[in-house]
């Protein structure tokens, strides 16, 4: 591999949603965890199911399979915890996946003008052409907003 080509190679995590595989830049992936209880409470964000608890942190769960494959997942084998950017800040979001994930190093082709907004780019791997996902186009949330501190002792100090 030449030095120029090596410089363009990045790490990606391949994730399975039903029959298809997609990719996320490895830099956006925090963890792959076993499915745990989803805590549901009333809300008006239809794309979200609730939150999971992970090391004391509450992480929103967003199933993106239906948007990408047209079908909800039959089985959830893992939750992929990924960093979702909100403007210049970020928070974790949990994405249910249906199979093992794989880390690969490959060069990404940038998405073209005709590609869907959720496509960041394309990978060619093991004879497959794989979409690299843009989470900000797939999961709900503002593009630019200040994120509240994720953890507070509590919001209103009363002394």
């Amino acid at each position, binding site marked *: 591999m030449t030095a120029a080509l090596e410089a363009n190679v990045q790490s990606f995590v391949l994730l399975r949603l039903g029959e298809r595989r997609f990719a996320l830049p490895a830099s956006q992936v925090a963890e792959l965890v076993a499915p745990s209880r989803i805590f549901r*409470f009333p809300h008006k964000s239809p*794309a979200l199911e609730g939150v999971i608890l992970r090391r004391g942190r*509450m992480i929103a769960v967003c199933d993106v399979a239906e948007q990408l494959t047209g079908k909800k997942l039959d089985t959830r084998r893992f939750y992929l915890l990924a960093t979702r950017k909100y403007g210049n800040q970020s928070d974790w979001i949990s994405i249910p996946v249906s199979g093992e994930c794989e880390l690969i190093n490959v060069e990404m082709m940038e998405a073209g003008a005709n590609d869907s907004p959720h496509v960041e780019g394309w990978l060619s791997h093991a004879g497959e052409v794989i979409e690299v996902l843009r989470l900000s186009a797939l999961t709900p*949330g503002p593009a630019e907003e200040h994120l509240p501190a994720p953890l507070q002792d509590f919001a209103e100090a009363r002394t």
Partner: protein
Amino acid sequence: MNLSAREKTHQPRTEQIILFRVSGQIFAISSASVQEVRSVDNIAGMARELPESHLTKVRHSIRRGDRTQYIVNAALHFGLKPQPASLVFFLRRTRTALLVDGIEKMTTMSRLQALSLAFQGEERNWYRGLTTLDQAVVPVVHPEGFLSLEELTILEAAQLAADAQGAQVQ
């Protein structure tokens, strides 16, 4: 710094909360924001109907001192299937009296996590955030989040209409 002063510095701040039940769902509210808890039977004679209220979650008001509080059905507010409510929380510094199914318990929370920005709906006004109690996640409600300014305007108009009707009858 002596030991007791250091302990004080590192003591986590806590907040007294009331866990209450609405249609099987548990919510938390700061006990400091609840002025009074009364049973529904206890206020039945004092509540006034608001026939012209266009808000399904508010059908009655109640006069307390020099102000009117609107009785909000918490189940309808949260989009849950209503069940017979048994208690009313009169919320401090708001125009809301909240109809709930019952109190679960009073407890203390030591941490409140802001709602993820992925949540983009009305829930951003409903909740101050989420807390964990006994490995369960509980939304902590915002006392001012039950009635928006627009809703209060609608209710004040309905109240005026109800008052005018009452005066005509007399």
